[in-house]
């Protein structure tokens, strides 16, 4: 039988029966969502209304912006580019990080602490610092303006992120389990795939989400390594917004579309978001 966990509201409720705490919270969240709602409302308004009339509830609605987005190869192409290099990066980062995280979690080896710290420094490295060298390196490799360039470059901070988060989850699995599998006769490979990975499914899911997210939102490196062919959505939005005579509705629509991937997955990782940002350490 579980003891009934008393919530913080019980302590703070000084006699009042109306739960003021939740009201204040949902009020703050309402204010917090204004910018996003404003973006959505702009994406369904006419450009001329946007620039001339100040109205909170749009008087006329049109889905022209979305239609144009999905018909213009420049835009939907950018979306496909973004999706392809982020997915590629996600898969590569997690695949490469899995064995390393296991090594960090299960073994001590010479230089392990320093390596683990060095990985953290890469996660924290300022992207601006790597502009120049990336630009030259990927041009020299002939990878410039391809999705592979951005996918590979983003591994700079996504692989360390993946190693740290996975190591955080893996350390939750007792070491005796590995030993018992060895005793039962499992080879390392079979144990890793059929026993260990199913146990950290949640960890792999969360790591994939965060690798995807950091790659999806990044602008600087993506812009530096892409030209017209591999132009991702973020860069496409940034470049059009600097030219005069903007199509605000289309830009807002692109913005809304750019949010959708994150919103779809966030429900599944909602309990691990803090753990993900704190590199598996909360």
């Amino acid at each position: 039988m579980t003891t009934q966990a008393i919530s913080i509201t019980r302590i703070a409720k000084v006699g009042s029966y109306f739960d003021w705490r939740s009201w204040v919270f949902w009020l703050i969240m309402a204010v917090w969502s204004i910018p996003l709602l404003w973006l959505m409302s702009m994406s369904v308004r006419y450009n001329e209304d946007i620039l001339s009339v100040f109205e909170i509830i749009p008087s006329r609605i049109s889905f022209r912006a979305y239609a144009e987005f999905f018909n213009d190869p420049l835009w939907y192409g950018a979306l496909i580019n973004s999706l392809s290099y982020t997915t590629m990066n996600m898969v590569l980062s997690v695949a490469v990080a899995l064995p390393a995280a296991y090594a960090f979690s299960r073994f001590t080896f010479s230089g392990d602490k320093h390596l683990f710290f060095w990985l953290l420094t890469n996660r924290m490295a300022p992207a601006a610092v790597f502009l120049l060298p990336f630009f030259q390196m990927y041009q020299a490799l002939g990878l410039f303006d391809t999705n592979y360039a951005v996918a590979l470059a983003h591994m700079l901070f996504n692989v360390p992120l993946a190693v740290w988060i996975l190591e955080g989850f893996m350390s939750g699995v007792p070491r005796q389990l590995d030993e018992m599998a060895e005793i039962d006769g499992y080879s390392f490979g079979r144990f890793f795939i059929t026993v260990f990975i199913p146990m950290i499914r949640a960890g792999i899911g969360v790591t994939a989400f965060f690798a995807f997210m950091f790659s999806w939102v990044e602008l600087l490196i993506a812009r530096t390594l892409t030209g017209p062919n591999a132009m991702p959505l973020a860069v496409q939005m940034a470049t059009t917004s600097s030219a005069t005579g903007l199509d605000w509705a289309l830009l807002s629509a692109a913005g809304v579309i750019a949010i959708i991937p994150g919103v779809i997955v966030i429900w599944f990782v909602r309990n691990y978001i803090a753990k993900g940002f704190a590199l598996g350490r909360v």
Partner: protein
Amino acid sequence: MNLKKKNNRAWFLVLPVVVVVAFTAIIPLMTVANYSVQDIFSPTNRLYMGLDFFRQIATDPAIIAAFQRNLVFSTQILAIEIPLGIIIAKLMPRHGWKAAAALVIVAIPLIIPWNVVGTTWRVLARPDVGLLGVAINQFREFDIGNTPADAWFTMVLMDVWHWTPLVALLVYAGLRAIPDAYYQAASIDGASAMSVFRFVELPKLRRVLMIALLLRFMDSFMIYAEPYILTGGGPGTSTEVMSILLVVIAVIQFDLGKAAAFSLIYFLVIQIFSFIFFTVLTLDERPGATKKRNRTAESARDDVARAIGGSR
């Protein structure tokens, strides 16, 4: 008992990561270091400059101004985001479907691409058609394109809107880790809500708050996309943070040597904070941190108690 086995064969498992990150980090850093000490006119014609570029950086007023701007920016956003994050975390529902819904809604700003955040706030702040711009314009003239204070205000507000949820989620995770017994004990002791916060919650949130502080400091210190799109560093250089300036020097002015030296200094400043962050993150994992089991003298009386307590 730390069961980690000593096994240098583990290097084979770690090798792929080392290769990948070396390729994406060490080689580029080497080229940056290379540029920071030479002036390169063409691949064959280079002039060794020694620490000349670094001296230029240290004395370049634009860079110093950008550095100070970054410091002020980071301090301001921390001063707002940490307390505001704690308040939101304290207000979040703890149980049932409301808690799940709250987690998702609070986290939404964190998954929005940084450029979309910049674009949204740029429109929002327009005095003619933006909700924020129009609202402020009623009281006083508001123009982020020309008034530095307005641009800076919007930039800080944008960052608070974008990243306070991270602090809230970290603190929320910290609060949920506190066992119920502490709240029950506090209510038995007749503690007020204020003293529960001060004496039960805050001490237990120390580590999580350190993580939030360091994470937010480093990310704000390296910020690029949102201010770049919001104001492009303008009006003038009032919102020109270091990342924007570095990109200008490297890509627009194409002054490679200076950009490389600037990059190295920038990178080293961040590493210092990463080291502090690393120590905090691995605080309870270090062997020294766990109390060594002290073996008290086995007095006969304790044996009897142990045997009886355990077996009968």
